[in-house]
């Protein structure tokens, strides 16, 4: 027989997308925010990002070599993890913080479960949670003033990030409003809060303090639009997540009873945009069903607001996503779509 033909199961053609294409697109989408980080926080932000990437890649390649598995770093997923770890630390952390964070993310959060596709939780967020638990002060003290702005985003107070400031001032108002001795403090807190609520523009551009990659809403959105256009992320998780945060913070975050909160402030501040578009949408750790994604986003939103308003941390995005990651198998199980033409028989 002269002809030798290849035989395999249908389909015989496939779409051109591949895992590396997806991962490198995510990397590209994060570049505007990375450049923004360097602009706002200085070259040290660049070093943090670089170190985190190198640490993630080296850890993954090293472990795979050690375990005599095929080395998969070429797929780009470790680079994404590295960048996201870096985005989740303050600008003044020592060089070993991003290194340890990335190494932990890969070595504990990803490889032991079987590598890409099998990890139950977002590795980058796990790395951040580890850093936060191990070096709480280094991870929560923000000192580097962003270029062209202040830490809080307003001129009067320059000592804290917007969410930190919000929490402090709100606590003062809620606790001391009826205390005559504290009238001055309450009044100045009210002034600070209203100024904070007027600082949308600073929040939007990123002229505020915070972790290096989370501050600039506009730059993150540019990347997100690119990912949406490429269809690498969908709108179901980000919209339900952000929508839930907006609604709940509008209802509960005010100082004058229900429905007196400022939803826009809560959407723009902290790491919500980064979390909603880049980390909650992580394919591996989010539901595959359509209904499941809405539930996942809403769950993230609820936990975020609860942590921000009543929890110990000013910021709740990363823990909310990590917690919801763990519910994904359950969500997928209970939101299985009905098979075409399936009739419920009892």
């Amino acid at each position, binding site marked *: 027989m002269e002809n030798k033909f290849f035989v*395999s199961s249908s*389909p015989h053609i*496939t*779409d051109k997308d591949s895992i590396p294409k997806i991962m490198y697109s995510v990397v590209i989408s994060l570049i505007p925010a990375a450049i923004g980080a360097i602009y706002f926080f200085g070259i040290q932000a660049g070093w943090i990002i670089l170190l985190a990437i190198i640490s993630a890649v080296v850890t993954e390649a090293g472990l795979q070599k050690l375990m005599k598995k095929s080395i998969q770093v070429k797929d780009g997923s470790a680079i994404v993890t590295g960048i996201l770890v870096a985005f989740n630390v303050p600008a003044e952390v020592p060089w070993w913080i991003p290194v340890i964070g990335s190494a932990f993310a890969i070595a504990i959060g990803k490889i032991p479960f079987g590598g890409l596709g099998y990890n139950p939780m977002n590795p980058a967020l796990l790395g951040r949670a580890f850093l936060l638990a191990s070096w709480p002060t280094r991870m929560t003290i923000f000192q580097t003033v962003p270029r062209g702005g202040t830490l809080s985003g307003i001129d009067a107070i320059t000592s804290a990030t917007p969410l930190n400031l919000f929490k402090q001032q709100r606590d003062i108002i809620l606790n001391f409003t009826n205390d005559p001795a504290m009238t001055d403090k309450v009044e100045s807190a009210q002034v600070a809060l209203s100024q904070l609520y007027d600082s949308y523009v600073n929040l939007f551009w990123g002229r505020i303090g915070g972790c290096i990659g989370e501050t600039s809403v506009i730059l993150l959105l540019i990347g997100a639009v690119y990912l949406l256009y490429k269809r690498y992320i969908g709108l179901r998780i980000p919209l339900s997540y952000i929508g839930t945060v907006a609604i709940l913070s509008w209802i509960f975050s005010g100082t004058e009873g229900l429905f007196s909160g400022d939803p826009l402030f809560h959407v723009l501040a902290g790491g919500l945009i980064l979390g909603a578009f880049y980390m909650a949408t992580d394919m591996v750790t989010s539901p595959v069903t359509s209904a499941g994604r809405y539930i996942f986003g809403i769950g993230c939103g609820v936990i975020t607001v609860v942590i921000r308003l009543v929890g110990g941390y000013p910021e709740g995005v990363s823990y909310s996503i990590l917690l919801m990651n763990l519910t994904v198998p359950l969500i997928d199980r209970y939101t299985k*779509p009905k098979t075409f033409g399936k009739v419920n028989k009892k």
Partner: protein
Amino acid sequence: MVFKKLTFKGGVHPPEHKELAEEKAIEVLPLPDYVIIPVQQHLGAPAEPIVNVGDEVKTGDKVCEAKGFVSVPSHASISGKVSAIEKRPHPVGGEVISIIIESDGNDQLSPSIKPITNYFDQDVEEMKKQIQNAGLAGMGGAAFPTHVKLSPPTDKPIDTFILNGVECEPFLTADHRLMLERPNDILEGVRIIMKVLNCKRGYIGIEKNKPDAIALIQQLVNESGNQLTVVPLNVKYPQGAEKQLIKAITNRKVPAGGLPMDVACLVHNVGTAKAVYDAVSSNKPLYERVVTVTGKGIKEPKNLLVRIGTPFQNLVDFCGGTTEDTIKIINGGPMMGIAQYTLEVPVTKGTSGILALTKQEAKLSEPEPCIRCARCVDACPMTLLPNTLARLIEYKMFDEAHKLGVLDCIECGACAFVCPSKIRHVHHFKYGKLEVTKMLKSKAA
């Protein structure tokens, strides 16, 4: 009647590549030196040879007889001498007993084939008999015996007939050309089918990428005053899958595990409709069909009228042969067709195309782990969870796979097409369906 959403949930948009052959008028392939007539070219019981080696046969003579109701006979597609009855490679897989006929070059027609006057006034049962005798099996690919579909049980009357002119498989243009070149035969076939079914409502579904066919059929329907509705459908794969087509046109959902007749619908392919006309109007058996020979690996893509049983090699040679970098020959389209290891397989009643793919097009990458991107979930026209099912089958958890509906999979390949990890879902599902069926059988026993 307004069609709001003429489509279905899920689906994908593979590159169509219809341009390779859609402008090529149907050419008649010269008679082959020999034909290979497999006794099984349909779903159901294989037919039984009724000729012996050495017998002389004429074109259209029956060479094997249906065995039971869900079975159809096959016919000699050339005149000549039966030279062998033996197992030969079959384009749907494996080897099947086949009747080999050496041509005498005369193409003498069987005397039973002659125009019937007033054929439309014949008794319905007579028509069904003609259709079975002519060996008709669905020509869209699945090759289910046509007369069986035309005999719904009395408690399941058909109120809607749908002619499937969708041809959603990329590359293939045989149905398209047939609609352009034999529209009257097709419409007459539809009229016969609707008479047999005693069905009053008829639709013709055609994808919008065939505007010329839509316009022509519409014009003929208008002229004839037929109660048919031509439905231009959005281009999306697998729009031509029976259940998806019914959903798009009638908004009825065929129940899982059920048949179109459960929602009072029946779907036939345009090729089958033409064959019905041939069978009823002149007793002409199904011994030839239109086959698209196409793909980047074919030097001159064509649409050919081919005798059943002609080896693929003849068709490919007539189209200038294959290019150097051809690595895959497919019976059918690229999404659901079956890869061939040899060109010595015959064209059968279900062969809608022969596709030659080049190295670059048919690149088969190593599967990577699933990253749960859920594109397969969004693409599945049966709203299954392909990623979960594939993993369950990989781990041989057939019980679970059955519960998640693996048997409802129509093997359209949309999931595997969109998968960035290049997981071969359909490969797993075919295996899984086999194992689940075995499991259910052993449980029932």
